[in-house]
Structure formats: structure tokens, C-alpha cells
């Protein structure tokens, strides 16, 4: 059913439709509207879940870990400082192969304190073993939660997943959104069946320690599972498309890329602005296209190499920076294109909520055409 609703509310509806049994979350801007909506659903018997009002994000994810190990579908949501506080638990959840789904309303990390959007928070957890989806708009954010549970809980995967969508830009924006019915979602996402669980009738030990004789293999197998998720996302995303008309089988999605000479690579809500800028540049005769990365973990290296095989140059937009190095997305795109020799330039932009406009995208295109890049973009020179 189409509804004009706020991104956070639409996501909360999607989470409700996934029937999580245990929710543990701690409020932080701009995630609050999601968890408030879920608490309200529980309080009004619209959602049969235990909502644990934890003392911190650290406890939130730890409680989800316990609930997941005991055999429940679980959910949390956070951002920025909250995600940073979960750092240790994030690695633990992935290592223990628990299929927890968590929304990340992407926000900058302090200092300086900033409640506004960039993607430094989830990108900083790229090595933690979580699947990472990035949504361009609220319909996608909503649908990806339902897909995330299917992928995470698949017995060949058993890994947790972030569904990332830009704080405020998406979380607080009203858009018309198709909210699926419970009946439809139940058909797509079956009741939760844990692969194994804490159970007095069948005791097993979870989270044992591994000596150097075993640790390397644990990491290898987790990496294999994360890489296998590519195929499962493609399959599940296609199935979603068949059932509901919106296909999410592609890990990366091209926009006017077929004959493009210059490709822009981006993640999240900025893709909308880039598409508009591309339309205008195309009207002016410039052959520019976009490659949107929807899945950042597992990293779609082969898919990127294939999608960009015919372009002459690539501009990567990073709403993050590995300080002392470069933007994380640019580094990995360059690695994916290494064999092709196609030049890749990175642009760090939009950090801490700095607005990015169509004219900025056009300027980046002219910079990459001149071979200028691997730099911050949009700095206010008068402040430096």
C-alpha cells in the first residue's frame, strides 16, 4: 500500500513486518524515530516483540547477540557514536555467525561532534564481517531490511547485516513508499529458524577461544561466507523483484552507463543528486553515467570491473575518509579496476552533512576529465 511517510517510519514498518522477537536499541540522533516507532508498536500490541530498553548501544548489540544465540530473530538500530561504542560487539556477532539485522542511519563521527550525515560510521566497520547494504531512497531502505533478514539467516551465510541509509537526508524525509502487507512479507521471509541455539536439551558451547591452531580457519570461513553472500543477495533480490516488482538482484546498479566515457561511483542518497546532474550533463552532450554501489560488503569487485569496463575514467565519491590515506570506496574501486588500467580519482565530500549539489557533481566531472582528484572537494578555503 502506498503511503506518504517518513523514512524512519517506513523502515520501522518494514522491521515490524519481519517479526523480530527481540529488539534492543539505544536512542541516538538521527536513529530515534525508528526505535520510537517500534516501541510504540510493541506498546500497542502491533508487534509481538520484547523491546529491551538497554543502558547503552554496547548493551543493545550484546543483548541482541544473546537473544540471537538463544534462537530469536533480533533487531537493533544505531549510528555514529553508538555504532562506534558497538565496535567490539560487531566483530563478536559476525565471528559467532549470528544473523542480526541493524539499521544504520549514517552520521558523522566526532570530534568535532556532528549529528549530520556522512558514511564514516558504517564504513569504519567494513572489516567487521557484517554485510553492508546502502540505500539510495526510502523505498530501497525499507525493502532492503526485509531482504537483509533473508540473506543473513540463509544457512549458507549466517552473518549479520547493516542496512545503511543516510541520516536526516533519508531518515527524516517524507516520500511515497509502498509498504508491503504482512501476508506478502510472511511469504517472502519465513519464520525464524536458528541454525543452532542455546538449548538445555542439546547443550553446545558458543564463543569458545581459539588457539593459533584454529583461529585462521575461523576467519577464512567467515570471509568465505561473506563472499558467498553475493550469490544469495542476487538470488533473494531477484525473488523480491518477482514477488513485489522491485528487483534488488544487482549489487551495483548502472545509470546511463552503457556509452559513458566518465563514470561516477557513489553510495547512498547522493546517487539521486548524481542522477539529476547526469541528466543535465547528458542534455549538454556529456557522456557521463553513474555506478551505484548498493552492497559494499561483500565488496562487488568483479561486478564493478565488469560494469566499468568500457569507461575512460572513474570519479569515486566518498562520504568518508581513511585519515592519512584516501576514501575507502575509492581505494577499493581502484583495486577492482587495477587490471583494466582505467584511471580512478577519489573525492572526499559531504562530510558532517555538508550539502552536495548538482553543480558540485558537474565540477567533479570536469576535474576528473583533467585528471585532478584524490582530494577533498568543497572545502571552504576561507576557513583554512
Amino acid at each position, binding site marked *: 500500500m502506498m503511503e506518504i511517510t517518513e523514512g524512519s517510519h517506513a523502515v520501522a514498518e518494514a522491521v515490524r513486518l519481519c517479526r523480530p522477537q527481540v529488539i534492543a536499541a539505544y536512542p541516538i540522533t538521527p536513529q530515534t524515530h525508528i526505535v520510537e516507532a517500534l516501541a510504540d508498536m510493541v506498546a500497542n500490541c502491533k508487534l509481538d516483540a520484547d523491546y529491551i530498553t538497554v543502558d547503552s548501544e554496547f548493551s543493545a548489540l550484546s543483548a541482541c547477540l544473546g537473544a*540471537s544465540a538463544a534462537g530469536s530473530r533480533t533487531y537493533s538500530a544505531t549510528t555514529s557514536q553508538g555504532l562506534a561504542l558497538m565496535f567490539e560487539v560487531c566483530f563478536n556477532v559476525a565471528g559467532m555467525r549470528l544473523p542480526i539485522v541493524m539499521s544504520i542511519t549514517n552520521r558523522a563521527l566526532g570530534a568535532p561532534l556532528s549529528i549530520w550525515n556522512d558514511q564514516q560510521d558504517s564504513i569504519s566497520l567494513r572489516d567487521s564481517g557484517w554485510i553492508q547494504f546502502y540505500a539510495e531512497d526510502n523505498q530501497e531502505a525499507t525493502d532492503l531490511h526485509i531482504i537483509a533478514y533473508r540473506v543473513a539467516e540463509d544457512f549458507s551465510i549466517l552473518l549479520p547485516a547493516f542496512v545503511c541509509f543516510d541520516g536526516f537526508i533519508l531518515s527524516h524525509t517524507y516520500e511515497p513508499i509502498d509498504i508491503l502487507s504482512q501476508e506478502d512479507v510472511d511469504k517472502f521471509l519465513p519464520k525464524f529458524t536458528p541454525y543452532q541455539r542455546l538449548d538445555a536439551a542439546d547443550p553446545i558451547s558458543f564463543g569458545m577461544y581459539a588457539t593459533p591452531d584454529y583461529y585462521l580457519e575461523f576467519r577464512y570461513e567467515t570471509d568465505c561466507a561473506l563472499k558467498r553472500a553475493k550469490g544469495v543477495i542476487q538470488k533473494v533480490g531477484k525473488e523480491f523483484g518477482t514477488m513485489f516488482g522491485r528487483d534488488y538482484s544487482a549489487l551495483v546498479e548502472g545509470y546511463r552507463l552503457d556509452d559513458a566515457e566518465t563514470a561516477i561511483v557513489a553510495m547512498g542518497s547522493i546517487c539521486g543528486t548524481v542522477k539529476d546532474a547526469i541528466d543535465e550533463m547528458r542534455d549538454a552532450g556529456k557522456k557521463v553515467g553513474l555506478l551505484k554501489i548498493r552492497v559494499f560488503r561483500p565488496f562487488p569487485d568483479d561486478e564493478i570491473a565488469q560494469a566499468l569496463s568500457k569507461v575512460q575514467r572513474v570519479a569515486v565519491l566518498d562520504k568518508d575518509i581513511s585519515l592519512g590515506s584516501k576514501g575507502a570506496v575509492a581505494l577499493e574501486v581502484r583495486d577492482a579496476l587495477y587490471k583494466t588500467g582505467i584511471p580512478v580519482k577519489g573525492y572526499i565530500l559531504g562530510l558532517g552533512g555538508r550539502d552536495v549539489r548538482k553543480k558540485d557533481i558537474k565540477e567533479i566531472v570536469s576535474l576528473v576529465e583533467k585528471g585532478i582528484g584524490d582530494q577533498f572537494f568543497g572545502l571552504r578555503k576561507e576557513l583554512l
Partner: protein
Amino acid sequence: MVDKAIELFDCGHRACGGCGAALAARLVMKGAGKNTIVVSATGCMEVFSTPYPETAWKVPWIHSLFENASAVASGIEASLKMQGREEKVVIMAGDGATFDIGMICISGAFERGHDFTYICYDNEAYMNTGIQRSGATPYDASTTTSPSGSCSFGNKLPKKDMPQILAAHGAPYVATASIAYPADLMQKIEKAVRTKGPCYVQVHAPCCTGWGFEGEQTIAIAKLAIETGLWVNYEMVDGKVSKVKKVVRKPVEEYLKTQKRFRHLFKPTRQDAEIAHIQSIADKNAEKYGIDIKLKKE
């Protein structure tokens, strides 16, 4: 009644000979019974009981991190409730995990009132990482981060009163126990597990390696802690102290002398003022809990 003959914490683990914590685990499991899910915090017990692919636990067991056992247990309890399952949740954490790094998670979990039993096996320091001080380390104990030296008598900070802190959270049942009194310990665990809500049992578990004594002395030393009044066994039901273990008190010196962590109080020179201060700690305990058995005058 739980069948005490069943061993749910099995032999073959890697604890030191004479480890008080291993004994605590065995006794706690006898008290808790097999319908139990155990959550461990990082520390000696977790490490010596579960070197992959072996485990000493014959009940479902989970370890996540050093400081989150009570949050993990909260999630487990919520999950069991949602599934309509009846297993009991028991946390086993060291004093470092409990008194120090786990405090925020513990406070939150006790405030929320989850139905679990939190057992702190108290060996009075971070043993797993090499005997560093914790909030449970007693006054003047020499540890690797509070070493005695030419201008130090060891740990200068008092032992934190965790039972009182958790009773203040509204915990319906709080108790202290000792591996030297197994029947009392098992009974307290049984009671804690049976009581609805978050319960806390702090078990004195001497560590031969960390405290510096021979492994066969563990129980004797635990007993001396009680007999000198440096450890008091009691219960707190709804915040009120009851069932205090009374003793005919011995001087604290008899306890201190048995352990290398207090050796600097006797050698090279006897430190009367320090020993007197520790005696005053025992005296305060005795007064606060009324542990002294008054012998009738002839």
C-alpha cells in the same frame, strides 16, 4: 531439589591444580542444575574451560566479551520468554568483569529486572592477564599493577561493596558465599536460581597462582578468610541482611601470612601499622554484620 551427584562442569579443563574458581564452577553447577544456560565473561574460567574444540560445560554455554555478560544474558532471557522456554540463565564472571568493566551492563540489567542469576567468582584480581588489581582486590595486596615496593604496601584502594550496590538496585536476592563451605554455596545458588528477578551471588574463590600459596591450601585459605572476618558469608533478601555466618574470630595475621601477596607486611620487617589497619577492616566487617560468636564467660 537438584541432583548434586551430576557433574555439569566436567573434568579435563585447564585450570591450575587447586584453582578456587574451577571448584566454584563445579559447585555452582551442582546448585543450578542442568536446565541452565551459562553466560561467561572473558577471564580465567572462560579460558580454562573452553579451549576450542573442547569444552568442560555440559550445559549450553556462551561467551561473548569481557564486559557484556549481563547484557548477553538479558537478551537470552528475553528470547526464552518470547519462546515460552523455561531454562534458567546463570552468569559466571570474574571480579574484574563484575566490579570494574562490566558495571554499566550490570547496572542496566539489574535495573531492568531480568530473571537471571549473576555469579561473581571473586579471586580478587585480574588473574587471566597476570594478576593485576581490580575493584575487588583487598587492601595492601600486592598485584602486578599495585606492587609492593620500597615506597608502597600494595593496593591502597578499598574493596568495592558490590553486594550492597546490587541490593540497592532492588535485587530480590543477594548473597556471598565461599568455596570453603560447599553446602552453603550450593544452597545459595539453588535459592538464587529459584528466585524470580536478577539475583547476585559473590563467591570467594582463592587463586593459588595469583595469591601465592600451594594448590592444596585453597580451601584452608578460603576458610581462614571467613574465620578472620575478612570475608563474610551472608544473604540479603530484599535488601535486608540475614543468615550471617558467625565465627570465633582469629587475628587477620593468620590469613595474611599464608599468601605471598601479603608477604611484604612481614618481610623484611613486620609492618604493624598496616596489619593493624587490615585488622580494623575485619573488625568493621564483624561489627557491620555481627559475625562474632560471643563465648560465654566461665
